[in-house]
Protein backbone atom coordinates (compact mmCIF):
# COMPACT_ATOMS: atom_id res chain seq x y z
CA UNK A 1 0.00 0.00 0.00
CA UNK A 2 1.62 3.27 -1.01
CA UNK A 3 2.15 6.02 1.51
CA UNK A 4 -0.14 8.49 -0.26
CA UNK A 5 -3.07 6.09 0.01
CA UNK A 6 -2.29 5.61 3.69
CA UNK A 7 -2.18 9.36 4.28
CA UNK A 8 -5.48 9.83 2.45
CA UNK A 9 -7.02 7.07 4.55
CA UNK A 10 -5.76 8.62 7.79
CA UNK A 11 -7.41 11.92 6.78
CA UNK A 12 -10.66 10.09 6.06
CA UNK A 13 -10.57 8.43 9.49
CA UNK A 14 -9.72 11.75 11.13
CA UNK A 15 -12.81 13.30 9.55
CA UNK A 16 -15.07 10.59 11.03
CA UNK A 17 -13.30 10.34 14.38
CA UNK A 18 -15.83 11.61 16.95
CA UNK A 19 -14.65 14.73 18.76
CA UNK A 20 -14.71 14.49 22.56
CA UNK A 21 -17.11 16.92 24.28
CA UNK A 22 -14.32 19.28 25.38
CA UNK A 23 -16.41 21.77 27.37
CA UNK A 24 -18.25 19.03 29.26
CA UNK A 25 -15.00 17.17 29.93
CA UNK A 26 -13.28 20.35 31.13
CA UNK A 27 -16.19 21.15 33.48
CA UNK A 28 -16.10 17.65 34.96
CA UNK A 29 -12.29 17.80 35.31
CA UNK A 30 -12.49 21.24 36.95
CA UNK A 31 -15.25 20.32 39.40
CA UNK A 32 -13.88 16.90 40.41
CA UNK A 33 -10.22 18.00 40.42
CA UNK A 34 -11.19 21.13 42.33
CA UNK A 35 -13.22 19.15 44.86
CA UNK A 36 -10.29 16.78 45.50
CA UNK A 37 -7.98 19.79 46.06
CA UNK A 38 -10.48 21.53 48.36
CA UNK A 39 -10.86 18.32 50.34
CA UNK A 40 -7.07 18.06 50.59
CA UNK A 41 -6.84 21.66 51.78
CA UNK A 42 -9.59 21.09 54.34
CA UNK A 43 -7.79 18.02 55.70
CA UNK A 44 -4.47 19.91 55.83
CA UNK A 45 -6.06 22.84 57.69
CA UNK A 46 -7.68 20.42 60.11
CA UNK A 47 -4.31 18.80 60.83
CA UNK A 48 -2.69 22.22 61.35
CA UNK A 49 -5.44 23.93 63.34
CA UNK A 50 -7.10 20.94 65.00
CA UNK A 51 -4.15 18.65 65.67
CA UNK A 52 -1.54 21.39 65.89
CA UNK A 53 0.83 19.87 63.33
CA UNK A 54 3.46 21.98 61.59
CA UNK A 55 2.81 22.83 57.91
CA UNK A 56 5.27 20.21 56.59
CA UNK A 57 3.97 17.50 58.91
CA UNK A 58 0.38 18.35 58.02
CA UNK A 59 1.23 18.12 54.29
CA UNK A 60 2.69 14.65 54.74
CA UNK A 61 -0.31 13.52 56.80
CA UNK A 62 -2.72 14.97 54.22
CA UNK A 63 -0.97 13.08 51.40
CA UNK A 64 -1.32 9.86 53.38
CA UNK A 65 -5.04 10.45 53.91
CA UNK A 66 -5.63 11.33 50.23
CA UNK A 67 -3.69 8.27 49.06
CA UNK A 68 -5.78 6.15 51.40
CA UNK A 69 -9.01 7.65 50.03
CA UNK A 70 -7.92 7.06 46.41
CA UNK A 71 -6.97 3.47 47.18
CA UNK A 72 -10.17 2.86 49.15
CA UNK A 73 -12.43 4.20 46.40
CA UNK A 74 -10.52 2.09 43.84
CA UNK A 75 -11.16 -1.00 45.95
CA UNK A 76 -14.86 -0.15 46.08
CA UNK A 77 -14.95 0.20 42.29
CA UNK A 78 -15.89 3.89 42.48
CA UNK A 79 -12.70 5.62 41.34
CA UNK A 80 -12.78 4.27 37.77
CA UNK A 81 -16.39 5.44 37.43
CA UNK A 82 -15.26 8.87 38.62
CA UNK A 83 -12.25 8.84 36.28
CA UNK A 84 -14.43 7.95 33.31
CA UNK A 85 -16.12 11.34 33.68
CA UNK A 86 -13.50 13.52 35.32
CA UNK A 87 -10.48 12.47 33.20
CA UNK A 88 -7.45 14.51 34.21
CA UNK A 89 -9.45 15.92 37.14
CA UNK A 90 -9.08 12.62 38.98
CA UNK A 91 -5.85 11.34 37.38
CA UNK A 92 -3.58 14.28 38.21
CA UNK A 93 -4.16 14.59 42.01
CA UNK A 94 -2.35 12.18 44.32
CA UNK A 95 -5.56 10.13 44.59
CA UNK A 96 -5.11 9.23 40.90
CA UNK A 97 -1.60 8.03 41.64
CA UNK A 98 -3.03 5.77 44.36
CA UNK A 99 -5.67 4.56 41.91
CA UNK A 100 -3.06 3.55 39.34
CA UNK A 101 -1.13 1.50 41.89
CA UNK A 102 -4.10 -0.15 43.59
CA UNK A 103 -5.86 -0.89 40.26
CA UNK A 104 -2.75 -2.69 39.01
CA UNK A 105 -2.28 -4.54 42.29
CA UNK A 106 -5.90 -5.70 42.30
CA UNK A 107 -5.78 -6.70 38.65
CA UNK A 108 -2.75 -8.93 39.00
CA UNK A 109 -3.53 -10.49 42.40
CA UNK A 110 -4.55 -13.72 40.64
CA UNK A 111 -1.00 -14.12 39.33
CA UNK A 112 0.28 -14.31 42.91
CA UNK A 113 1.83 -11.89 45.38
CA UNK A 114 5.37 -11.96 43.95
CA UNK A 115 5.09 -11.95 40.15
CA UNK A 116 1.54 -10.61 40.17
CA UNK A 117 1.01 -7.88 42.76
CA UNK A 118 4.70 -7.27 43.45
CA UNK A 119 5.89 -7.12 39.88
CA UNK A 120 2.89 -5.47 38.24
CA UNK A 121 1.88 -2.95 40.92
CA UNK A 122 3.91 -0.15 39.34
CA UNK A 123 3.18 -0.85 35.64
CA UNK A 124 1.25 2.42 35.36
CA UNK A 125 2.80 4.42 38.22
CA UNK A 126 6.38 3.23 37.58
CA UNK A 127 7.10 5.56 34.65
CA UNK A 128 5.74 8.51 36.67
CA UNK A 129 8.15 7.73 39.51
CA UNK A 130 11.13 7.19 37.16
CA UNK A 131 10.65 10.36 35.12
CA UNK A 132 9.52 12.35 38.16
CA UNK A 133 12.80 11.46 39.89
CA UNK A 134 14.86 12.30 36.78
CA UNK A 135 13.08 15.63 36.34
CA UNK A 136 13.58 16.49 40.01
CA UNK A 137 17.27 15.65 39.68
CA UNK A 138 17.71 17.85 36.58
CA UNK A 139 15.81 20.74 38.16
CA UNK A 140 17.90 20.37 41.32
CA UNK A 141 21.08 20.37 39.25
CA UNK A 142 20.02 23.52 37.39
CA UNK A 143 19.12 25.19 40.68
CA UNK A 144 22.55 24.33 42.08
CA UNK A 145 24.35 25.57 38.93
CA UNK A 146 22.45 28.87 39.03
CA UNK A 147 23.21 29.31 42.73
CA UNK A 148 26.94 28.99 41.90
CA UNK A 149 26.72 31.96 39.54
CA UNK A 150 24.74 34.06 42.04
Amino acid sequence: MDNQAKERYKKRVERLNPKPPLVKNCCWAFVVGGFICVLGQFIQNSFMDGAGLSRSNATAATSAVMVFLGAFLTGLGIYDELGKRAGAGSIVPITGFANSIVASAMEFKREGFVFGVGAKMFTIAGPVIVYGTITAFIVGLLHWLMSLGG
Partner: protein
Amino acid sequence: MYKKIGQQSMRFSLPPIVRETATIVGPKEGDGPLADCFDKVLSDTLNGCESWEKCESSMLEWSIKSVVDKAQLSLKQVDYILAGDLLNQLMSTHFAVRDLHCPFIGLYGACSSMALSMIMGAMVIDGGFAHNVVGAASSHHDTAERQYRYPTELGVQRPLIAQWTVTGSGAVLLSDEKTLELPKITTATVGKIVDMGISDPDSMGPAMAPAAVDTIVQHFHDTGRDANYYDGIYTGDLGKIGKQLVIELLDEAGYAVGDRYEDCGCLIYRDDQDVHAGASGCASSAAVFCGLLYKELCKKNLNKILFIGTGCLHSTTSYQQNETIPCIAHAAAIEV
Protein backbone atom coordinates in the same frame (compact mmCIF):
# COMPACT_ATOMS: atom_id res chain seq x y z
CA MET B 1 -12.07 -31.58 -8.19
CA TYR B 2 -10.47 -28.15 -7.95
CA LYS B 3 -12.58 -25.88 -5.77
CA LYS B 4 -10.69 -22.62 -5.75
CA ILE B 5 -12.27 -19.81 -7.74
CA GLY B 6 -10.55 -16.56 -8.67
CA GLN B 7 -7.67 -15.25 -6.58
CA GLN B 8 -8.77 -15.92 -3.03
CA SER B 9 -12.10 -17.73 -3.00
CA MET B 10 -13.46 -21.24 -2.93
CA ARG B 11 -16.73 -22.85 -3.91
CA PHE B 12 -17.60 -25.96 -1.91
CA SER B 13 -18.69 -28.88 -4.06
CA LEU B 14 -20.61 -30.43 -1.16
CA PRO B 15 -21.55 -27.36 0.88
CA PRO B 16 -21.54 -28.29 4.58
CA ILE B 17 -24.66 -27.45 6.57
CA VAL B 18 -24.62 -25.35 9.72
CA ARG B 19 -26.46 -27.93 11.77
CA GLU B 20 -26.71 -26.03 15.05
CA THR B 21 -25.39 -22.99 16.86
CA ALA B 22 -25.03 -22.11 20.53
CA THR B 23 -24.37 -18.77 22.21
CA ILE B 24 -23.57 -17.58 25.68
CA VAL B 25 -22.98 -13.95 26.68
CA GLY B 26 -22.25 -11.80 29.71
CA PRO B 27 -24.71 -9.56 31.57
CA LYS B 28 -24.04 -6.37 29.57
CA GLU B 29 -24.74 -8.17 26.28
CA GLY B 30 -27.76 -9.82 27.89
CA ASP B 31 -29.05 -6.32 28.63
CA GLY B 32 -28.74 -5.27 24.97
CA PRO B 33 -31.22 -5.38 22.08
CA LEU B 34 -30.34 -8.99 21.10
CA ALA B 35 -30.95 -10.42 24.59
CA ASP B 36 -33.64 -12.83 23.38
CA CYS B 37 -31.38 -14.35 20.70
CA PHE B 38 -28.81 -15.79 23.11
CA ASP B 39 -29.08 -19.27 24.63
CA LYS B 40 -27.61 -18.29 27.99
CA VAL B 41 -26.88 -14.98 29.70
CA LEU B 42 -24.47 -14.93 32.65
CA SER B 43 -25.47 -12.91 35.70
CA ASP B 44 -21.91 -11.65 36.26
CA THR B 45 -18.60 -11.63 34.42
CA LEU B 46 -16.98 -14.25 36.67
CA ASN B 47 -19.74 -16.88 36.51
CA GLY B 48 -18.54 -18.43 39.79
CA CYS B 49 -14.96 -18.82 38.49
CA GLU B 50 -11.80 -17.61 40.24
CA SER B 51 -10.64 -15.49 37.31
CA TRP B 52 -12.00 -13.84 34.17
CA GLU B 53 -9.83 -16.15 32.08
CA LYS B 54 -11.46 -19.18 33.67
CA CYS B 55 -14.86 -17.64 33.06
CA GLU B 56 -14.03 -17.16 29.37
CA SER B 57 -12.88 -20.79 29.13
CA SER B 58 -16.06 -21.97 30.82
CA MET B 59 -18.19 -20.00 28.32
CA LEU B 60 -16.34 -21.51 25.36
CA GLU B 61 -16.57 -25.01 26.82
CA TRP B 62 -20.28 -24.49 27.47
CA SER B 63 -20.94 -23.31 23.91
CA ILE B 64 -19.06 -26.27 22.37
CA LYS B 65 -20.81 -28.85 24.58
CA SER B 66 -24.13 -27.14 24.08
CA VAL B 67 -23.94 -27.04 20.26
CA VAL B 68 -23.12 -30.77 20.22
CA ASP B 69 -26.04 -31.50 22.59
CA LYS B 70 -28.45 -29.38 20.55
CA ALA B 71 -27.50 -31.32 17.41
CA GLN B 72 -28.21 -34.55 19.36
CA LEU B 73 -24.69 -35.78 18.83
CA SER B 74 -21.97 -36.78 21.27
CA LEU B 75 -18.46 -35.32 21.42
CA LYS B 76 -17.17 -38.68 20.11
CA GLN B 77 -18.94 -37.95 16.83
CA VAL B 78 -17.15 -34.60 16.47
CA ASP B 79 -14.12 -35.09 14.23
CA TYR B 80 -12.44 -31.76 14.96
CA ILE B 81 -12.90 -28.72 17.11
CA LEU B 82 -11.58 -25.55 15.47
CA ALA B 83 -11.56 -22.64 17.89
CA GLY B 84 -9.79 -19.49 18.96
CA ASP B 85 -9.84 -16.47 21.26
CA LEU B 86 -7.91 -13.25 21.83
CA LEU B 87 -5.58 -14.16 24.66
CA ASN B 88 -1.89 -14.96 24.39
CA GLN B 89 -1.27 -18.60 23.38
CA LEU B 90 -5.07 -19.05 22.97
CA MET B 91 -5.33 -19.49 26.72
CA SER B 92 -9.12 -19.54 26.96
CA THR B 93 -9.50 -22.01 24.10
CA HIS B 94 -6.84 -24.43 25.24
CA PHE B 95 -8.30 -24.68 28.74
CA ALA B 96 -11.85 -24.92 27.36
CA VAL B 97 -11.07 -27.97 25.19
CA ARG B 98 -8.74 -29.58 27.74
CA ASP B 99 -11.39 -31.91 29.11
CA LEU B 100 -13.34 -32.48 25.88
CA HIS B 101 -10.97 -35.18 24.55
CA CYS B 102 -11.61 -34.27 20.96
CA PRO B 103 -9.17 -33.63 18.09
CA PHE B 104 -8.49 -29.91 18.19
CA ILE B 105 -6.94 -27.28 15.96
CA GLY B 106 -6.36 -23.85 17.51
CA LEU B 107 -6.92 -20.85 15.27
CA TYR B 108 -5.77 -17.29 15.76
CA GLY B 109 -7.47 -14.73 13.59
CA ALA B 110 -8.09 -12.25 16.41
CA CYS B 111 -11.73 -11.13 16.10
CA SER B 112 -12.10 -12.91 12.74
CA SER B 113 -11.78 -16.29 14.49
CA MET B 114 -15.48 -17.24 14.20
CA ALA B 115 -15.59 -16.79 10.41
CA LEU B 116 -12.15 -18.38 10.13
CA SER B 117 -13.28 -21.47 12.07
CA MET B 118 -16.37 -21.78 9.86
CA ILE B 119 -14.36 -21.52 6.64
CA MET B 120 -11.69 -23.96 7.83
CA GLY B 121 -14.40 -26.33 9.10
CA ALA B 122 -16.19 -26.20 5.74
CA MET B 123 -12.91 -26.95 3.96
CA VAL B 124 -12.21 -29.93 6.21
CA ILE B 125 -15.71 -31.34 5.64
CA ASP B 126 -15.80 -30.65 1.90
CA GLY B 127 -12.35 -32.19 1.61
CA GLY B 128 -13.77 -35.39 3.04
CA PHE B 129 -11.74 -35.32 6.24
CA ALA B 130 -14.66 -35.08 8.64
CA HIS B 131 -18.40 -35.56 9.07
CA ASN B 132 -18.89 -33.13 11.94
CA VAL B 133 -16.76 -30.15 12.91
CA VAL B 134 -17.32 -27.64 15.70
CA GLY B 135 -16.18 -24.08 15.03
CA ALA B 136 -16.11 -21.74 18.02
CA ALA B 137 -14.69 -18.49 19.34
CA SER B 138 -14.81 -16.48 22.55
CA SER B 139 -13.81 -13.17 24.06
CA HIS B 140 -14.23 -11.52 27.46
CA HIS B 141 -14.21 -7.81 28.13
CA ASP B 142 -12.07 -7.98 31.25
CA THR B 143 -9.49 -10.51 29.97
CA ALA B 144 -9.02 -8.46 26.81
CA GLU B 145 -8.79 -5.16 28.72
CA ARG B 146 -6.08 -6.37 31.06
CA GLN B 147 -4.08 -7.97 28.23
CA TYR B 148 -4.35 -5.21 25.64
CA ARG B 149 -5.03 -2.03 27.62
CA TYR B 150 -5.19 -0.99 31.26
CA PRO B 151 -6.18 -2.60 34.56
CA THR B 152 -9.98 -2.54 34.69
CA GLU B 153 -10.21 -0.38 37.84
CA LEU B 154 -7.94 2.34 36.43
CA GLY B 155 -9.78 5.65 36.23
CA VAL B 156 -9.16 6.58 32.58
CA GLN B 157 -11.43 8.03 29.93
CA ARG B 158 -11.94 5.72 26.95
CA PRO B 159 -11.83 7.61 23.67
CA LEU B 160 -15.10 7.84 21.73
CA ILE B 161 -13.64 5.80 18.86
CA ALA B 162 -12.94 2.85 21.19
CA GLN B 163 -15.15 -0.23 21.16
CA TRP B 164 -16.27 -2.55 23.94
CA THR B 165 -15.05 -6.17 23.86
CA VAL B 166 -18.00 -8.55 23.99
CA THR B 167 -18.09 -11.07 26.83
CA GLY B 168 -19.38 -14.24 25.28
CA SER B 169 -18.85 -17.23 23.08
CA GLY B 170 -20.50 -18.79 20.07
CA ALA B 171 -20.18 -22.21 18.49
CA VAL B 172 -21.42 -23.76 15.26
CA LEU B 173 -21.70 -27.41 14.36
CA LEU B 174 -20.92 -27.99 10.68
CA SER B 175 -21.90 -31.28 9.15
CA ASP B 176 -21.88 -33.17 5.85
CA GLU B 177 -25.39 -34.49 6.57
CA LYS B 178 -27.35 -34.13 3.32
CA THR B 179 -30.87 -34.96 4.47
CA LEU B 180 -31.42 -31.82 6.54
CA GLU B 181 -32.72 -28.59 4.96
CA LEU B 182 -30.50 -26.14 6.80
CA PRO B 183 -28.27 -23.15 5.94
CA LYS B 184 -25.13 -24.15 4.05
CA ILE B 185 -21.71 -22.60 3.66
CA THR B 186 -21.48 -22.35 -0.12
CA THR B 187 -18.50 -20.14 -0.90
CA ALA B 188 -15.80 -18.42 1.08
CA THR B 189 -13.06 -15.89 0.57
CA VAL B 190 -9.90 -15.99 2.66
CA GLY B 191 -8.54 -12.50 3.23
CA LYS B 192 -5.03 -11.15 2.97
CA ILE B 193 -3.45 -8.84 5.49
CA VAL B 194 -4.19 -5.17 4.87
CA ASP B 195 -2.43 -2.45 6.86
CA MET B 196 -3.41 1.13 6.11
CA GLY B 197 -1.06 2.61 8.67
CA ILE B 198 -3.44 3.01 11.63
CA SER B 199 -1.38 2.58 14.80
CA ASP B 200 -3.80 3.65 17.55
CA PRO B 201 -4.97 0.44 19.25
CA ASP B 202 -8.23 2.18 20.24
CA SER B 203 -9.01 2.80 16.59
CA MET B 204 -9.68 -0.81 15.60
CA GLY B 205 -12.79 -0.30 13.46
CA PRO B 206 -11.00 2.15 11.14
CA ALA B 207 -7.94 -0.13 11.09
CA MET B 208 -10.01 -3.15 9.98
CA ALA B 209 -12.40 -1.44 7.55
CA PRO B 210 -9.98 -1.53 4.55
CA ALA B 211 -9.34 -5.26 5.15
CA ALA B 212 -13.09 -5.91 5.19
CA VAL B 213 -13.55 -3.94 1.96
CA ASP B 214 -10.63 -5.74 0.33
CA THR B 215 -12.15 -9.14 1.10
CA ILE B 216 -15.71 -8.15 0.12
CA VAL B 217 -14.56 -6.71 -3.23
CA GLN B 218 -12.37 -9.76 -3.86
CA HIS B 219 -15.32 -12.01 -3.03
CA PHE B 220 -17.55 -10.23 -5.54
CA HIS B 221 -14.78 -10.34 -8.11
CA ASP B 222 -13.96 -14.03 -7.62
CA THR B 223 -17.57 -15.26 -7.49
CA GLY B 224 -19.03 -12.93 -10.10
CA ARG B 225 -21.61 -11.80 -7.54
CA ASP B 226 -22.44 -8.32 -6.34
CA ALA B 227 -24.16 -6.86 -3.28
CA ASN B 228 -27.62 -7.53 -4.79
CA TYR B 229 -26.98 -11.27 -4.63
CA TYR B 230 -27.12 -11.16 -0.82
CA ASP B 231 -30.00 -10.36 1.54
CA GLY B 232 -27.49 -9.20 4.09
CA ILE B 233 -23.77 -8.48 4.35
CA TYR B 234 -22.44 -8.54 7.90
CA THR B 235 -18.99 -7.55 9.07
CA GLY B 236 -17.78 -8.75 12.47
CA ASP B 237 -16.81 -5.88 14.73
CA LEU B 238 -16.05 -2.63 12.94
CA GLY B 239 -18.33 -0.49 15.11
CA LYS B 240 -19.99 2.73 14.00
CA ILE B 241 -16.94 4.44 12.52
CA GLY B 242 -15.65 1.31 10.78
CA LYS B 243 -19.11 0.64 9.34
CA GLN B 244 -19.31 4.14 7.88
CA LEU B 245 -15.83 3.70 6.37
CA VAL B 246 -16.84 0.39 4.75
CA ILE B 247 -19.92 2.01 3.20
CA GLU B 248 -17.82 4.87 1.80
CA LEU B 249 -14.99 2.64 0.53
CA LEU B 250 -17.35 0.10 -1.06
CA ASP B 251 -19.26 2.93 -2.70
CA GLU B 252 -16.03 4.25 -4.19
CA ALA B 253 -15.16 0.73 -5.39
CA GLY B 254 -18.46 0.69 -7.27
CA TYR B 255 -20.52 -1.47 -4.92
CA ALA B 256 -23.44 0.31 -3.32
CA VAL B 257 -24.44 -1.94 -0.42
CA GLY B 258 -27.20 0.27 1.00
CA ASP B 259 -29.36 -1.19 3.76
CA ARG B 260 -28.10 -4.70 3.07
CA TYR B 261 -24.94 -3.97 4.99
CA GLU B 262 -24.71 -4.08 8.76
CA ASP B 263 -21.94 -4.54 11.28
CA CYS B 264 -22.40 -7.09 14.10
CA GLY B 265 -20.61 -4.68 16.44
CA CYS B 266 -23.41 -2.14 15.95
CA LEU B 267 -26.16 -4.62 16.90
CA ILE B 268 -25.18 -5.91 20.34
CA TYR B 269 -25.44 -2.84 22.57
CA ARG B 270 -27.85 0.06 22.92
CA ASP B 271 -26.49 3.57 22.54
CA ASP B 272 -27.01 4.28 26.23
CA GLN B 273 -24.86 1.33 27.34
CA ASP B 274 -21.74 3.51 27.30
CA VAL B 275 -19.78 1.38 24.82
CA HIS B 276 -18.83 4.31 22.56
CA ALA B 277 -18.26 3.11 18.95
CA GLY B 278 -19.85 -0.35 19.38
CA ALA B 279 -18.85 -3.92 20.12
CA SER B 280 -15.62 -5.74 19.32
CA GLY B 281 -13.97 -9.06 20.11
CA CYS B 282 -14.32 -12.58 18.70
CA ALA B 283 -17.68 -12.90 20.43
CA SER B 284 -19.12 -9.89 18.58
CA SER B 285 -19.45 -11.75 15.29
CA ALA B 286 -19.79 -15.15 17.03
CA ALA B 287 -22.76 -14.09 19.16
CA VAL B 288 -24.53 -12.25 16.34
CA PHE B 289 -24.07 -15.06 13.80
CA CYS B 290 -24.90 -17.90 16.18
CA GLY B 291 -27.60 -15.99 18.05
CA LEU B 292 -29.33 -13.88 15.42
CA LEU B 293 -28.28 -14.52 11.83
CA TYR B 294 -28.45 -18.33 11.95
CA LYS B 295 -31.98 -18.19 13.34
CA GLU B 296 -33.04 -15.69 10.68
CA LEU B 297 -31.61 -18.01 8.02
CA CYS B 298 -33.46 -21.01 9.47
CA LYS B 299 -36.72 -19.01 9.51
CA LYS B 300 -35.94 -17.92 5.94
CA ASN B 301 -36.22 -14.25 6.85
CA LEU B 302 -32.75 -14.16 5.31
CA ASN B 303 -31.80 -16.52 2.51
CA LYS B 304 -28.32 -15.52 1.47
CA ILE B 305 -25.84 -13.73 3.66
CA LEU B 306 -22.18 -12.84 3.45
CA PHE B 307 -20.60 -13.06 6.89
CA ILE B 308 -17.22 -11.36 7.21
CA GLY B 309 -15.06 -11.88 10.29
CA THR B 310 -12.65 -8.99 10.84
CA GLY B 311 -9.52 -9.06 12.98
CA CYS B 312 -6.77 -6.72 14.19
CA LEU B 313 -3.58 -8.79 14.30
CA HIS B 314 -1.51 -6.53 16.54
CA SER B 315 -0.08 -7.41 19.93
CA THR B 316 0.80 -5.36 23.00
CA THR B 317 4.47 -5.70 22.05
CA SER B 318 3.87 -4.57 18.46
CA TYR B 319 2.08 -1.36 19.37
CA GLN B 320 4.57 -0.47 22.07
CA GLN B 321 7.21 -0.77 19.34
CA ASN B 322 5.17 1.73 17.28
CA GLU B 323 4.12 -0.80 14.66
CA THR B 324 0.92 -0.19 12.76
CA ILE B 325 -2.02 -2.62 12.97
CA PRO B 326 -2.12 -5.43 10.37
CA CYS B 327 -5.73 -6.44 9.77
CA ILE B 328 -7.54 -9.31 8.10
CA ALA B 329 -11.05 -10.25 7.04
CA HIS B 330 -12.47 -13.61 5.99
CA ALA B 331 -15.83 -13.97 4.28
CA ALA B 332 -18.20 -16.93 4.24
CA ALA B 333 -21.40 -17.05 2.19
CA ILE B 334 -24.18 -18.86 4.02
CA GLU B 335 -27.26 -19.69 2.01
CA VAL B 336 -30.48 -21.55 2.71
